[in-house]
């Protein structure tokens, strides 16, 4: 004990003179290694473990389907497939009937990728719905009206969902193992920082936008909770 007390770390002594008596150079290094290790575990390993990842049933290219659109990020382009029903409710991920409008004939020359072959033989031919995994499904207790935001609020799809009208590959679906929510809800970054409006879909993000646009009244609990 006497030896360690004689060689205090100069940094620690400078910062906390009173600690110098207790922390040796070796002890300081041990603390630093442990601290960095804990940060690594908490900020890198834990998020990896927290989220499971699984591929979609087969790949879907938004780019191919929007090739003829002038602007693949335009709301009208998205609405072709991600449509509204007559009562204002939102279809979300289109069902087989929508795909059928173009893909009904299995012999039709609409492309020759393996994914399309999977789709035509395993799903379209058997009239089976594709079990897509939704990246944006909110928890059961949340109510969200797409009509209010897209039709009345005139908000673009990418404001919340990000630009992916030109994407060629579907990303892996990652689900929180504890809550069962997709990673898009709480965001990719465990730090909670966000740079884009579509980085996160938490309650505070909804409220932030409502407030910014001058609709504080829509922060009432029952507007989004059900």
């Amino acid at each position: 004990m006497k030896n360690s007390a004689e060689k205090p770390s100069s940094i620690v002594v400078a910062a906390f003179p009173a600690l110098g008596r207790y922390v040796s150079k070796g002890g300081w290094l041990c603390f630093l290694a442990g601290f960095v290790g804990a940060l690594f575990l908490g900020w890198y390993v834990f998020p990896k473990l927290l989220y499971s990842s699984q591929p979609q049933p087969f790949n879907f290219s938004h780019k191919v389907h929007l090739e003829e659109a002038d602007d693949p990020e335009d709301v009208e382009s998205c609405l072709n497939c991600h449509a509204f029903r007559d009562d204002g409710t939102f279809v979300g991920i289109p069902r087989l009937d929508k795909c059928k409008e173009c893909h009904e004939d299995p012999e039709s020359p609409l492309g020759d990728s393996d994914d399309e072959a999977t789709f035509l033989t395993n799903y379209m031919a058997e009239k089976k719905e594709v079990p897509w995994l939704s990246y944006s499904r909110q928890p059961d207790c949340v109510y969200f009206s797409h009509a209010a935001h897209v039709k009345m609020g005139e908000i673009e799809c990418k404001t919340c969902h990000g630009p992916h009208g030109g994407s060629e590959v579907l990303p892996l679906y990652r689900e929180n193992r504890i809550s069962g929510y997709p990673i898009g809800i709480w965001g990719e970054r465990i730090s909670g920082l966000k740079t884009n409006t579509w980085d996160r879909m938490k309650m505070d993000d909804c409220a932030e936008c409502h407030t910014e646009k001058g609709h504080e009244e829509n922060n009432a609990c029952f507007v989004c909770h059900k």
Partner: protein
Amino acid sequence: MKKEHDQGKYKYGMVIDLDKCTGCGTCMVACAAENNVSVRPDESDKQRSISWMQVYKADNGKEFPEAETVYFPRPCMHCEQDGRGGHAPSCVSVCVATATTLDKNTGIVSQIYTRCIGCRYCQAACPYKARYFNWWDAYFPVDKGLERYLSPEVSPRMRGVIEKCSFCHHRLMRARTKAYADGRRKIKENEYITACAEACPAQAITFGDLNNPKHKVAQLIKSKNAFRILERLNTKPKVYYLSSRDWVRKIADNPVDEFSPISG
């Protein structure tokens, strides 16, 4: 550019005509089905069963031929104040978790199950016994087909939280969404009514905006027969009752000779 928003001027309320009510209980069943209200294996245990809409029976205590009965359907009253000078109903002011609030734009008292911590202060504070506590997780008998009737518009409640009538708030959101899709900001009178009002075979329940003089409810509450239960508490409930019978108004703790007619 800030657009004019069609909010902040609604006060949704209900008028129940007790002279029409037959006590059949359809409103209770319609409400439970609409709002995914869980059932107990033994539903006859009324100390523990949950009923957002509850029908109470009362009589005038006389023998035949003067004997008369009245049924009081009781949803959440969606009070406007606690009656002691506060600007929130008593259930809201006692909530430690801000799980229940009075929305000034609609007049509806919300209950957020995921926020509720289950302290049951609100249940104790409610003078109308409109709040129910979930002692168990939601239960829907398997293999009996009940789970197929669950509504995706109302989230099921978990063990340890309070639940209560929401004036079918999801129906308001449904009506608004429909209006937005049609390019309207306003919803029409008949577009948003509660499940109990829709189901009542005697059409005793009327629902609408108390602030809109064109709505039927706003006209009905001006009747001299209109009253509210426990009006002397001054909680300003938004559920009004109609009865032409004096003794009915009297047992609702609102004798006409003691209190002036409802002003709204």
